[in-house]
């Protein structure tokens, strides 16, 4: 393989830092000026992200005109010890360029929408501050020129997402969901950190170019460990199995947050990480298999649970989990499929953002209700929302000629192209996922907009204001057309990153896959229409066991509880117990002594030093005994 090098940035491209600085400055202004900015602050937020989008477009154009499709900038040195140098470097190449456009473009539309959505919220200025902060962190993540910078962005988006999920702190569910997201992400971050340590100790650098060029010299064990650690990190951020549970809970945040963070951008960071590290992932077949397994498992998992949920945002959240599973599947397949994963990511960014904003518009109309059992017949009242939601629905289920058809079908075909029995399994899973997607999305669509009205008495639905429908219409158009427009150009555009790849051919031809997919999609959609055209029961009802299991997130929660929560709680209780005998005991004991009322506590209190000394003594005995054991051996 030819060594990877990145050209120095020139001209407009040397302004890459400004892409990050714009939203960062917006965040600083919004968060530091305080209440004075309440009246106009949100427009600062919109303006900075808009300006960043314009800049990204300009840079995209100048990158297209270059021979070397990359532009690296070194800002300053962060750490320089012995052999290891870590620079604050930025890299603008085809891969980061498309991410920048997605983040700033879709981000701009969502910012605009949020002006209307958050109009009546007291904390709107703060909200836009966090929103800008998030955009800045996400841009650091995709523009970083080494793993260190990526990690900084990685932590930054984690923090911003925590702040935004728990934005409505007074809702306990929101506070809990924020914590859950944060903790799950931290667990996965451990993978990222360890991967970085491993790179430093084996390759001696965190620079993309150095790591990728040095990766070939790694032993099998090291490249396996490195790949799995990065995969763990990616799974955490992208809500993939086994870290999927935080993502649906994150829907407790305001809907624009769900749209921006938990659909269009942050959750794609895992896909970005794998695509960026494609050299490492291509080294080891076992790692690739692991990615494929995670992707296939998650896409089914998300789709199955999505069928059983009755909350409009949760269905969309599980659908996000499932769609990102497709992207993981694609980047795991490697080769030509890397670009397919990115295309699906971009197309998904449009239609999922549109769907989420549409659901926000519906909630706006229905007094913030989210239960689709109590919707129905909304198409007449909110035609624009209806039309744009329909566009998103057609795009996600992947019917010709809409977006998803161009982005998802090739992934399914590529999954079938895997060698031997594995191809049948992964391809089958992807095909089944498509059918399930069609089913649950049609169910969502029909129950929300068609059928009899099942509204609660106090709602008076109405169409949302223009500032909300405007972005919806744009995203709707994007949902319809993005996939078709992007499929070929983006593949070519990404060639400098992933190299020239040839489509693999396997068990089925592309035409056969297309026919099969269209057939199962139509089948799933028609089945959903048949079952739900007359509405559904208005309250939860008893169901057969498969539905119950799916409603319980396929046991994901139970596993979490058993594996993490229970031991965590035990440890916490134990620590409280020990702690209670510490200073709290002393304080209690002292107050009791002062009041002359409790001898017992006082007696306990004098026992403390003794018990502490006992702990030291037993520790010492163990230390010495252990040393003796070494001798005897």
């Amino acid at each position, binding site marked *: 393989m030819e060594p990877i090098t990145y050209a120095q940035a020139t001209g407009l491209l040397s302004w890459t830092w400004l892409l990050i600085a714009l939203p960062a400055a917006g965040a600083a202004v919004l968060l530091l000026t305080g209440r004075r900015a309440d009246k106009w602050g949100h427009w600062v937020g919109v303006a900075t992200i808009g300006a960043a989008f314009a800049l990204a477009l300009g840079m995209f154009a100048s990158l297209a005109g270059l021979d070397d499709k990359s532009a690296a900038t070194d800002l300053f040195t962060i750490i320089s010890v012995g052999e290891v140098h870590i620079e604050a470097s930025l890299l603008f190449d085809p891969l980061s360029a498309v991410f920048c456009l997605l983040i700033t473009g879709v981000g701009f539309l969502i910012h605009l929408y949020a002006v209307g959505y958050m109009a009546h919220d007291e904390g709107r200025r703060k909200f836009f501050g966090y929103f800008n902060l998030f955009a800045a962190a996400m841009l650091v993540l995709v523009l970083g020129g080494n793993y260190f910078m990526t990690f900084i962005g990685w932590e930054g988006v984690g923090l911003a997402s*925590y702040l935004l999920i728990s934005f409505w702190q007074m809702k306990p569910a929101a506070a809990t969901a924020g914590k859950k997201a944060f903790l799950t992400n931290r667990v996965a971050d451990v993978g990222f*950190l360890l991967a970085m340590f491993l790179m430093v*100790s084996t390759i001696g650098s965190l620079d993309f170019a150095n790591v990728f060029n040095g990766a070939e010299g790694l032993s099998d064990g090291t490249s396996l460990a490195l790949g799995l650690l990065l995969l763990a990190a990616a799974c955490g951020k992208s809500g993939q199995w086994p870290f999927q549970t935080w993502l649906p809970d994150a829907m407790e945040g305001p809907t624009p947050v769900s749209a921006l963070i938990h659909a269009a951008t942050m959750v794609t960071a895992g896909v970005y990480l794998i695509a960026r590290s494609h050299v490492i992932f291509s080294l080891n077949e076992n790692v690739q298999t692991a990615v494929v397994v995670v992707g296939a498992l998650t896409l089914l998992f998300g789709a199955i649970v999505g069928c059983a949920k009755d909350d409009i945002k949760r269905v969309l959240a599980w659908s996000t989990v499932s769609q990102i599973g497709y992207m993981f599947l694609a980047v795991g397949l490697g080769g030509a499929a890397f670009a397919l994963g990115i295309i699906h990511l971009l197309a998904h960014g449009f239609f999922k953002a549109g769907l989420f904003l549409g659901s926000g518009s519906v909630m706006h109309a229905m007094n913030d209700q989210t239960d689709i059992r109590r919707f129905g017949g909304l198409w007449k009242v909110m035609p624009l929302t209806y039309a744009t939601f329909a566009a998103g629905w057609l795009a996600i289920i992947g019917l010709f000629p809409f977006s998803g058809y161009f982005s998802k079908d090739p992934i399914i075909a590529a999954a079938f192209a895997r060698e031997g029995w594995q191809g049948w399994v992964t391809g089958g899973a992807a095909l089944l996922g498509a059918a399930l997607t069609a089913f649950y999305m049609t169910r969502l669509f029909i129950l929300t907009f068609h059928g009899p009205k099942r509204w609660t008495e106090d709602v008076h639905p109405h169409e949302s204001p223009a500032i909300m429908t405007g972005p919806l219409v744009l995203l709707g158009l994007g949902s319809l057309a993005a996939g078709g427009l992007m499929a070929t150009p983006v593949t070519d555009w990404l060639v400098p990153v992933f190299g020239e790849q040839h489509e693999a051919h396997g068990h089925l031809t592309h035409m056969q896959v297309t026919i099969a997919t269209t057939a199962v999609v139509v089948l799933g959609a028609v089945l959903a229409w048949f079952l739900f055209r007359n509405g559904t029961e208005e309250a939860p009802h008893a169901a057969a066991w498969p539905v119950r299991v799916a409603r319980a997130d396929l046991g994901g929660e139970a596993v979490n509880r058993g594996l993490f929560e229970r031991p965590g709680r035990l440890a916490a209780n134990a620590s409280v117990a020990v702690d209670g005998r510490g200073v709290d005991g002393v304080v209690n004991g002292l107050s009791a002594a002062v009041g002359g009322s409790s001898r017992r506590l006082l007696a306990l209190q004098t026992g403390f030093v003794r018990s502490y000394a006992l702990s030291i003594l037993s520790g010492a005995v163990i230390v010495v005994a252990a*040393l*003796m054991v070494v001798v005897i051996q």
Partner: protein
Amino acid sequence: MSEMSIDWAGLAPMIIVFASAFAGLLIEASVPKARRLVVQVGLAVLALAAAFIAVVLNAGKSATAFALEGTDIGSVALDGPGLFLQGTIALLSVVAVLLLAEQRTTRGGDFVSEAAVVADSAADIAQRRESGATEIFPLTLFAVGGMMMFVVAGDLLTMFVALEMLSLPLYLLCGLAKRRRLISQEAALKYFLLGAFASAFFVYGMAMLYGFAGTISLTGINAAGINSNEPRILLYIGVGMIAVAMLFKAAAVPFHMWTPDVYTGAPTPVTALMAACVKVAAFGALLRVFNVGLQSSAWDWHTILVVIAIATMIGGAIFAVTQRNIKRLLAYSSIANAGYLLIGVISLGDAVGQTMFYLAAYGFTVIAAFAVVSLVRDGDDEATDLSRWAGLGKNSTGTAVIFTVLMLALAGIPFTSGFTAKFSLFSAGLEAGEIGLVVVGVVSSAILAFPYLRVVVLLWLNEPAPDAPTVNLPSPMAGTVVAAGVLATVLLGVAPGFLLDIVSEASTFLGT
């Protein structure tokens, strides 16, 4: 006549500090009470600054301070790590002295005026308005002198003397709080009893090692580890006992139990002194003992130290999660950090520089954190319960911003010293082949980040209570402490290069 050559310049830092401590005692007896505070603080700051300069002038030295007829006597080893740690201790203690001298956050400062008055008696309540005893400054100087000696001690006896010299004044300082005196005295007594217990281990271990090696010098013990004919069991008992005594001071699990109680009970400036300077001294000595004295028996003690390090990292982090009191939270975090530092000790020569960097970075952050704790007050008392800190960002934005930076540093978020320090220490650990320890360390710091960030959320996202604690705007004293700590935290996070260069130059022990 035997000829003794003494490196006076090399000893100057310790001489300056000890001499000033004695001068401080004389000041107590001769200067009128009204002017004592100014004189004592001035003297202490000048002495420590002069000691720091004297350390800097010694930079690059690698020799013993005493030699008899041309033969080195290893009792004081002036080498790279020793001098670096001495300098760190001097700088950190200048900052700590300023915090001790703070008089404005509560009238007359945090220290009791007459410690002999019965707690909560009428006389005690009356003396709360008076300013605190100024004996704390000479006491601090003695303790600091002991710490500076502890890190350059080249034989076990000198080390023991230094250990006692740094401990005894600290026991006293812990008991001198003006508010909640009973808890403070309780902490002091507890610390003293357990400290004495640990010292006994040290002496016993020293005797065993002498029996094994026939010498108490660290280099001699190392040589004996290879070629001594005495039963090795003496070595193991000795190593175990010495390790226990030092791990007690370093607050490693299971010798940590005093830490939360003493950190909470002691006056906050003293807690800051312990968390920053004593940690440096204890780990400095641990590094020296294991690198110089016990390297040849590394294979024997490796496993048990790994187990202790893992217990310390995990224990400290898990206990920290449930804490509701900020001082206890910082205490448990200091325990967990002791675990990370143990990785540096276990990795021996490969990680000496990184461990020292970690000590310096952690010291400044934690001292500033305790300084902020001493500023947030309910009336005259510190508001240490975390629930009282809710919404601090609303009314005292500056303080909340500073504390956020410190918490992020302790949590190891990039662009703070906490990240750089953890990053370089863990990388060094990996290079030394301690993969398991590093994995545990990363996991533990991920757990530990949670309580810190919970504090941040508490500061910014929660609504303040109507009777929220006030933040006493710091006087120049506490202001300087906070500023110095935050500055070091950010500087070592953004541009750590210069200090990393210094520690890598200064990472070779004399006699290794």
